[in-house]
């Protein structure tokens, strides 16, 4: 209603998205994207696209809900907000019903790929250092879990558990440099 209102969940968006922090982000226009992928890359994406295609007659279509997963599976790491944005801000109920074909997907994927600032190892470590109360290279596992579940694009408890499984030492501390290496090693 207010003219300057941001559409997305507020503080989460600013960090890495391609669009600068403006009060109003423009609609995503797929036709404005020029494809820079090589034919080889496109073949690769097709393979993966097919793996996600669950239509009965193999129509080369995926649901909106799968779009984010596929982009991530191909090596990018957009935020959920970015995904919603490039999908044209669909309603929640559309996510399972609306479909994307391969060409539409390619434009979206290209757009995400062009975005800068994906987060380097240093960014990561810097970010975690925030929680390093004693400045000794480790953070409390409990605090990290709390943060991941309550801030930003919140994770569910079971997701947090899966991520942190076996990372804490007997005192409940995590050496965050090792942790970052671990996350980035997948």
């Amino acid at each position, binding site marked *: 209603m207010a003219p300057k209102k941001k559409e997305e969940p507020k503080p989460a968006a600013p960090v890495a998205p391609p669009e600068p922090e403006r009060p109003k982000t423009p609609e995503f226009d797929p036709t404005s994207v020029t494809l820079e992928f090589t034919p080889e890359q496109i073949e690769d994406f097709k393979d993966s696209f097919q793996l996600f295609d669950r239509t009965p007659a193999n129509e080369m279509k995926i649901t909106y809900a799968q779009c984010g997963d596929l982009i*991530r599976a191909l090596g990018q790491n957009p*935020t959920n907000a970015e995904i919603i944005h490039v999908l044209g801000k669909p309603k929640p109920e559309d996510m399972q019903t609306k479909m994307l074909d391969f060409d539409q997907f390619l434009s979206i994927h290209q757009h995400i790929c062009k975005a800068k600032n994906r987060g380097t190892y240093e960014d990561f470590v810097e970010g975690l250092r925030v929680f390093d109360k004693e400045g000794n290279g480790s953070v409390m596992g409990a605090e990290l879990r709390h943060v991941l579940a309550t801030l930003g694009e919140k994770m569910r408890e079971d997701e947090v558990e899966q991520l942190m499984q076996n990372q804490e030492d007997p005192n409940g501390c995590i050496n965050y440099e090792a942790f970052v290496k671990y*996350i980035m090693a997948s």
Partner: protein
Amino acid sequence: MGCGVSKSDQFHKHSGKAIRAAVLIQRWYRQYVARAEMRRRYTWHIFQSIEYSGEQAQIKLYNFLGYLMDNFTPASNERNLISHIFRENEVCRDAEWERYFCYKNIEVPEIYSGPHLFFPLTVEQAVGLVEAFRNKKQLHSRYVLQLLAETWKLFRMMPNINRISTCQSKEITICGDLHGQLEDLLLIFYKNGMPSLEKPYLFNGDFVDRGKDSIEILIILFAFLLVYPSEVYLNRGNHEDHIVNLRYGFTKEVLTKYKMHGKRILKLLQKIFSWLPLATVIDQKVLVLHGGISDTTDLGVLTRVDRHNYVSALRPPKKRHIISTGTSIDSDVDEDVWGTNKSFQRRASLIYPQPLGTRGSFHNRSLQDFSDRIRGKEEDDLEARKRRQSVFINRSTEKETTLTVSTDSDSSDNIRDEWKQILDLLWSDPMSQDGCVPNEVRGGGCYWGPDVTEDFLNRHNLQLIIRSHECKQEGYEFCHNRKVLTLFSASNYYDVGSNRGAYVKLGPDLVPYMIQYQATSMTRELTVRQSAGRTERSALKVLREQLFAHKSDLICAFKKYDSNNTGLVSLNDWATAVESVMHLGLPWRMMRGQLVTCKTSDGTVDFNEWFNELAIKRPNTDHIDQSLLETLYRHRSTLETIFRIVDTDNSGFITIEDFRQTWKLLSVYLKMEITDEAISDLSVTIDRNQDGSIDIDEFMEAFRLTDKKSRLERGRSMFMGTATDLTKLDEDPNI
């Protein structure tokens, strides 16, 4: 720095940073999850394609042997082998069977520490068996035979289709495939309680094969069946079939565990399997069967068939002669052909509706085609039988012999129709498209669509079909508008961590309630990430073996893309060529990182180098032709199956001569030239102690694929994970 500052102050001060950090981690986490899911999918796909292509190979093998039956010439050497293969413990009266299966002479030694059974069984004894097996004890063969004999008697009284009800608000527990995985059965009993008057159970087939405790599972199920015959129900699965057992491990398991009496146990089990009920209907509304249905499935027909004539669903039914004395003789269709009709010649098109075609075509035929030949055979059989009949009439003093098979085509159609019904019931899979098509992936049964389900349910006034037969990641899966439920109870089926198992509870409201579980003794020390990684490594190992085994075909395919003979192909061409040979429908491009390391800088693949990566290492094989070795390796499953078929007395050994004959058979099947010399070389190497017989197990164990990539991975895995996990990975022989 942080000592005196309160948490909320610090938080406020760094909130922007904290949030940014959180978002960063969350993004990366979500990426990791998506990639893991992708890999899980193709890992699954690998295992499943290989599993199904194995089943298909099994059926093709059987088709082939059937083809040989029709096409041998009287003078050929193969004839002896084939008659040897198909002849069973033939004409035998019931009294003789009883003597054969008698357990009374078997002594149980003093030192035996396993459970003792006293009949009639009590529930305490059944529970005792569960405990004993949990503690890795083995039941003595005397008790096994006794148990089986009692079980056989019970099954013979059961109808083809059991009809049960959930009256008195009893919930019935339904379990899917167990495949010899005792741990899963123990887990189900632990979570759900053992069978009792208040707790009826229904087990939906495939109790045996693949897992290592198939016989123990059978013993437990049969014991509870004997104690609670109205509360325990068993449906037949496609693995309750001695021919399938030859390939998938049950036969081997029994012979290994019961060295003296294993053969008898297997024989008795053959009979029991054929007497297993085919399906169960609950409250007249829910149909439970192992595989599925087709557009011709008719419960009326299924109620009427003589199910015990179908000892194996893969072979045409046995024929029965009934003599005046009331006892019966079981004999094989084939037996008649071989036994009496020495001058058997292949008839012309009068009998066979269509020409058999070239040798190659049998590869593409499904069992449905095979059934055409039965029709022809019957006409011949009748002639042979008439000749026999006259002998019997002379001997019998009272009424004349009655034949259960008459000459007119109606009856042969009936048999054929019955056979198809049973095959469909045990082997079919649902598909998402409408219609009904033959199941070419497995080689038997069909794929049926939602419209067929709808029609079938309406026709029979049912509301739900519960079936098993397919592994599902969550242990169960609905399809066809929630009218078909697939239920699978063997967790970690493809590998540790691959899937959960599930069982279903059904009360009078007939709304299925699923409980999932996963046997964890192997995964306890591994994180989710590590166990998923293990499964993937395992799948890739299996895939690499398959690729190596198709080396010659692959090289041929690559050469087509390499017109300049550079030894290099582009990535695109590599993927296309591989799929054209392997036919597994896998996303090769996506997996190339795991399968090919020797890429040149411009993204081409040096395919010869690639095969070096995949090389098989085995001692003392230098003098054996490499392509022969490759063939051996590729078809090792088929080879093992043929061996076990040839080994009719189930001793675990076959003679050198039979071995040679087997090879000739295989070479015909594969349309390969194998010289006698090559075979002799092979025989000599394998018959280590030169006593003229070959130990099948020893021979098969000799195949171990070790390749550079696996060794590298083992090294790499040392650096992953925390200290506690490394030791587990180290000890694991599968990695």
